[in-house]
């Protein structure tokens, strides 16, 4: 089957200048497990668009690097 990649406006925005490479706080608390580290940069990003906009990632981030937006379809 042919797969296509689709652009999506994702709810979780990571400010890479603030994200700490050795920290996994946001990744560990996400109930839906949608955040991962980019293996090349060590920065967290939202890999899967499956967000409950519940905010633990934003609240547990020690440097304030994360902003959660309401998903576009609900906004």
């Amino acid at each position, binding site marked *: *089957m042919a797969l296509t990649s689709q652009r999506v406006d994702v709810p979780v925005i990571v400010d890479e200048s603030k994200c700490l490479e050795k920290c996994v706080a946001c990744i560990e608390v996400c109930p839906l497990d949608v955040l991962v580290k980019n293996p090349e940069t060590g920065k967290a990003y939202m890999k899967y668009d499956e967000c409950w906009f519940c905010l633990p990632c934003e609240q547990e981030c020690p440097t304030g690097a994360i902003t959660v937006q309401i998903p576009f379809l609900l906004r």
Partner: protein
Amino acid sequence: MNIQYLKTDFLVVGGGTAGTMAAIKAKQASPESDVLILEKANIRRSGAIAMGMDGVNTAVIPGNSTPEQYVREITIANDGIVNQKAVYETGRLGFSVIQELESWGVKFQKDHEGNYDLKQVHRVGKYVLPMPEGKDLKKILARQVKRHKVNVTNRVMATRVMVQNGRVTGAVGLDVRSGDFVVIQAKAVVLCTGACGRLGLPASGYLYGTYENPTNAGDGYAMAYHAGAELTNIECFQINPLIKDYNGPACAYVASPFGAYTANAEGHRFINCDYWSGQMMLEVYKELNSGKGPVHLKMYHLDDDTINEIETILWDNERPSRGRFHEGRGENYRTHGVEMNISEIGLCSGHSASGVWVNERAETTVPGLYAAGDMASVPHNYMIGAFVYGRIAGENAMDYLRDLEHVEPDADFLAAEQARIYAPMEQPEGVPHTQIEYKLRRLVNDYLQPPKSPNKMDIGLQKFVAYEETLNLMGARDPHELMRCMEVHFIRDCAEMAARASLYRKETRWGLYHYRLDYPEKNNEEWFCHVNLKKDGAGHMELFKRPVEPYIVDVDLIEEVYDVAVR
């Protein structure tokens, strides 16, 4: 792939409200036993109360109400179809749960004299107790789990319960990060996996924009079914009056004691009680479909200080992103009503009554298998009920398993389940789970959203049965996607149960939750009973009537009809 073998005395599947309490109580009852919580997320932030809770809704506090009064109110609110003995336990044990939570640092609201500051939200009686600082509830529970030396395995999702020789012997699952196949031997298992909150598709079209935490995909309903346990009241859907699009609570339970109320577009009341019942939902449905809709939660008549207080509670607990939702739309409680809508359907005993059948000992119909929380059948049980039934399950399970030995897993069962789980990984180019799930849940909306039409439900049922084949088209590229694929299996199982149970009960009951267009009246002569279902010996879904247990608290249901309409 790797296989992990684990062994424990008591396995708790799901580390939310009920699960953490079940594990703690099991260790208190039997400190030398081994207790393991299996959680597909991380117990610090998982389950329905991942972000905390702003209050408890079923608090029976001595001096304010009695378990008998509570049983009476829930019996009437649930149109008489209740096992009163089970409801009674929530009333009887709820206060000791509150006291224990307080000893762990959870704060409940008290008045100036130090008494619990209970609010009336139910039709009769005060059972709502605010927790304005309830945001750290889950962290406090996780700390107690650790303190009680409970073992925790995060990021492993159970997929099936193991049953051998007529009793539970463990569970199997999937490590959602490493992809390992996980086999856990246990002498008793409690399922605490929450609601089926991902059954209908939200009107926004966003798969995860649900009222319930979307991790709660009906896992326990499906696992209990495949283990041979009975389920009950599945046709009594969960449908909630929610903030339109945001799909979270508005939240009248918090705001109505301050003077807020649900109003139609003209600003008038059309219900005199904001407690969620099927009958109340029917009134909301009627108003939305009259010329007086839409409806909104009205607060703009309140003074600024009161609204500030409501905002502080609503934006700090349960769903803290609510504030930024309103902000993004330029809406303010001082000037705007909160537009509300009827949610898509789900299954949840915490709010309605559908669940895995349990008695007042939290026992399912399979020996050694317990259930608690939103997926166990005690109606309107909410968070206090989840704690109470977690406790009951934990204590009873330790008693049950004392003299039991582990049983070697059945190799054929493991091989078959392994093949089922990993099939999508064999075809990574298969149809993405998102599309398979979207279509399934859209069909749920098309054919099952009340009011219920028999012909539509028949078509829906055929489509859900045929969807077994469609699931075989799913492809997964990594363990995370595989987790979602397995959740779609659970959702399909729940959709089939919802259709069959709704077709079986040929009457209308629970207001909108089971409003049948072809049988618009309640029929106590034929249907004053539970509708239960289970997997029969040939693997088919069997439905049957189960009598309502004799009442322990007298209620005259002819005299006391639940009616909250303003006429």
